[in-house]
């Protein structure tokens, strides 16, 4: 990029107001781009149910951070019912900032019309859309998990979706898909943080050549933390040799022996969950696995739950979690929400980060954070999780939604079947925000060059009149 580029980054919320993974990723990328000498960046985000003050939906957070209060998203077809939000407020911003590239991180709350808003402003401005979930495909909060039963779903279709949501007809689902796809057809480049998610969208109908897999950037601490010595809960169980070690769960075939136990004096028996306490994040799977452990094992371990949002769940789910917490209070403690600045300390105080989600996930931030801090991950063996964690190399996977398999895994860990130090040594260093910004800026340049070329080609090419019969049109 020779000239100064103006990059507009769009998100579903501002991390100062809502600390969702997408908001943080988008905002960090925006800040990093804004730091670059040849770039101006603007952050534009929805503020769901935000205030309408001074007679406008728009509010300034900083000179290059603008919020739009939205109240009228149709969550079925992801449409913005209040069109002036796009036609006026967003248009004004576009005309003032004059972006050379627009990067949209989420359209929920804004409406898929945000894409057309950019296209209407200038069809030659490249549009990048990062897909963070399966919202376009799935009406069940974009999770591709069956409503009610929470069974994994592999593919959408009008009739199957109608079975999940009988209140909408198959035709409604057909219209939903056609509607969303009409906007997606205006996007120049899709970005997916995982191969798994990219594949789902290709199956759904996006052209494979338009999707690029690019990992989300993380705010990486200077280097991997030192291997902090863990407390020993039971010194007696700490000493085990190859000979006395019981043949555990598939230990032999795991990671070509990398994870096998050598003689160890230190136990790595502290497990933690980080994230929202919702049915889809699988906290109940983790707690249930603890109830299935032998008392001797339970004495050896400590499980901390760092998560928020339980109070907003259904009474049934709250009751289930409450009951499980009572049953496991000897070794489990619920700590509740945490601030991002506390994360490092919390991570360093545990040995394993457990990600027991029962939905596919995309690229869970918590896995990247765990790797940032050199913590091996124990996660469900599906989707974006299985893609990010190499079983027996830098973590362990268990059968999704199977408390028994997770219990077996924990027991194997306690029995010292895995060499924590080696798994830890193998944890990859996540992509930093700086590297991610470099990659994105390179992508933008590529798109800008392609756009310039397209404009050039169109200017030179003779126009065919589609209304004339083909043989006539072929004649000069």
């Amino acid at each position: 990029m020779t000239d100064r580029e103006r990059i507009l980054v769009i998100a579903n919320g501002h991390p100062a107001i809502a600390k969702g993974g997408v908001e943080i990723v988008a905002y960090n990328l925006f800040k990093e781009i804004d730091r670059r000498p040849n770039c101006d960046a603007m952050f534009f985000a929805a503020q769901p149910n935000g205030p309408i003050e001074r007679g406008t939906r728009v509010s300034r957070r900083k000179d290059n951070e603008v919020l739009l209060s939205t109240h009228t998203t149709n969550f079925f077809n992801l449409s913005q019912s209040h069109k002036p939000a796009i036609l006026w407020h967003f248009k004004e911003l576009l005309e003032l900032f004059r972006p050379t590239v627009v990067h949209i991180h989420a359209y929920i709350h804004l409406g898929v019309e945000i894409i057309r808003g950019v296209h209407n402003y200038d069809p030659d401005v490249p549009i990048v859309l990062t897909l963070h979930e399966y919202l376009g495909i799935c009406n069940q909060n974009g999770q591709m998990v069956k409503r009610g039963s929470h069974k994994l779903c592999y593919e959408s279709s009008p009739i199957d979706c109608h079975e999940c949501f009988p209140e909408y007809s198959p035709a409604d689902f057909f219209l939903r898909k056609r509607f969303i796809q009409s906007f997606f057809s205006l996007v120049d480049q899709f970005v997916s943080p995982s191969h798994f998610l990219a594949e789902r969208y290709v199956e759904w109908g996006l052209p494979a050549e338009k999707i690029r897999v690019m990992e989300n950037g993380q705010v990486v601490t200077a280097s991997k933390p030192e291997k902090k010595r863990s407390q020993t809960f039971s010194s007696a169980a700490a000493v085990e040799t190859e000979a006395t070690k019981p043949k555990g769960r598939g230990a032999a075939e795991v990671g070509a022996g990398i994870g096998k136990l050598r003689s160890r004096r230190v136990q790595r028996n502290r497990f933690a969950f980080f994230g929202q306490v919702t049915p889809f994040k699988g906290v109940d799977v983790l707690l249930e696995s603890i109830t299935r452990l032998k008392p001797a094992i339970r004495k050896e371990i400590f499980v901390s739950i760092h998560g928020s949002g339980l109070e907003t769940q259904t009474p049934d789910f709250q009751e289930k979690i409450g009951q499980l917490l009572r049953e496991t209070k000897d070794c489990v403690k619920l700590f509740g929400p945490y601030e991002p600045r506390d994360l490092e300390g919390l991570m360093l105080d545990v040995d394993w980060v457990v990600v027991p989600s029962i939905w596919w996930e995309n690229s869970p931030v918590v896995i990247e954070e765990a790797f940032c801090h050199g913590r091996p991950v124990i996660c469900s063996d599906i989707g974006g999780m299985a893609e990010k964690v190499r079983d027996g190399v830098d973590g362990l996977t268990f059968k999704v939604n199977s408390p028994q398999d997770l219990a077996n895994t924990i027991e194997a860990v306690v029995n010292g079947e895995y060499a924590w130090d080696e798994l830890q040594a193998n944890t990859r260093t996540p992509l930093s925000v700086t590297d991610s910004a470099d990659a994105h800026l390179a992508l933008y340049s590529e798109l800008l060059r392609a756009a310039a070329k397209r404009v050039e080609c169109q200017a030179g090419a003779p126009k065919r009149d589609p209304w004339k019969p083909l043989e006539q049109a072929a004649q000069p």
Partner: protein
Amino acid sequence: MKNSLVKRATVRALRSLGLRNSEYSERSTAPFHFEIDHFYALKNEAYVVHGWLVDPDELVASLTVTDGRRASGDLLASAQRRDRADVRQAFDHLGLEDEIGFVNLVSMADLGHAPTARLHARFALTTGEVFNFPMPERTIEDNPDRELYAMVNRRLHAKGSAAIVSRSGRDPRDTLESLNADVRIAVDSCYPIAGGYLFLSGWIVDLDHAITTLKVKQGEVLSQDVRRNATRYPRPDLLPSLNGKKTPRDNDFGLSVLLKFELDDGADDLALYMETQDGETLTLDISGASQRLDVIEMSKRLLGEVDFTTRDAGARLGCVGQAIRLAWQASKQDLHDVEITKEAFGEPVKSPAVTVIVPLYGRYDFMEYQLSQFAIDPDFQQVELIYVIDDPEILDPVRATSADLHAMYGVPFIVVWGGRNRGFAGANNFGAGFATSDTLLLLNSDVIPKYPGWLSAMKRAHVELDSPGGIAPALLYEDDSIQHAGMTFDLHPDIPELFVNVHEYKGLPASLVLSQQTAPKEVAAVTAACLMMSTEIYTELGGLDERYILGDFEDSDLCLKALDKGYKNYFLPSIELYHVERQSQNLFENKTWKQRITLYNCWEHTEKWGNSIRALKLSRGSSD
């Protein structure tokens, strides 16, 4: 549905009606509402139950009459259904086809002739709950309802009672019993029809052929004999009441007739005038039997009289069909005073390649679904797109959102409103009146393109084809099966006098059907859901025929008109769009009423085109 909404609606309905609310509806949160309007004993033979039920969640499993020990059969299952416009208007979600009113009879013998005060209505719910509701007690005089008389006549006569011609004769001596001759007559329905007609139906038992003259009379005006040109049909329900009398070879006691007779609404002396071979004369008051109804209600009642399972259904349909046709023609005549509006959104397209006409009725969200697709199709920058509002209910929302939809999607269009609901044919014809291009495309709002460029491809085909009349592409359901791949005709499975339209290959996988053919194919008819025709030919043919009720058969009618003038209709298998045929969201869908309207339309269509279709079949058959 929100309970509170229904609750509010019910309260509103009841207030406006001055009806009592049922205690159950007051106390319970169960989202169903009902009223037993009338309950009385009739002639020591039967209890009559008369009421309405709004039960969107289908909670009510049965309604019986009980004295605590004995109970009747389910009244709802065998009830005569009827529209209750008064109640319906209070429930936003109810439509004309929702026949929430019911009337039924319970044999008094079944309940030991218990006094009405001892009886209860019992609602059994699908949840297992049972609720008893005390019956109101009223007499028939409170409820002068002709249709009810007709049913009482039918039901009770089957059990051998005397006929009730009307409440009573004007002169107490003017009764059938005063005659020497053994004749019985009943008038089931009597509807004045605009343009000076009277539709009459009922039955006559005159085994000795005693009646020489039987006419409708008002003042000094007499009709022709009602038996002349009448459609006669069996009434097996009357046979038991003959009490062993010699039975005629045919028992065509039933009678329906459309009389040329100008009724004076101001006078209340409508009567049946009768002469017998013995020289007796009798004037029977039937003024109470005559009912002036709006055209839809009357169509429903008339079609409701025909038993379509019998062999004479075709003939009876012919009789009521003529009455319905006259009524609809009359209802369409006063259009001169309606307010017509036209609003353009975006710069009107200069010399458009095609005029696309889309009628909007009910769901207007289809408009945005369509525009979001048209927006990604460059063809639509050269198209004159006309949305025709054909539903007063959606007038305001469509007008309110049109400017935003244009600004968002960048497709220019115009919105026209014909001042009232004109029906599918009327709306298309009205829209065509605004066309400035030489080619029309009639398009349903629930047709969604599969890919851009389909319209210019269709136009190119239209230009290249030999004498095209109507041409239409392949239409697919959302599961990629065939909705439309050309139409042909076949005999109606139950009523062999009628031809029905047949959608070829409907429901089969589109890939299977369309891979066999790519070239345009000459067909008998194509669907109007997406039909292209030159504006000139459309005008020459008079557009879509507006005689059909509620949208049906107009497309095949148009195509048959085109064939008649020497044009050819084509199906274009190489162009595909989706058609998410409107699925009724209505929980009360009364299939019978819709099926009956379809049969009426079918009758009209066959009346007009039966010979052409037969000829078409023959010529196709011989050329094969």
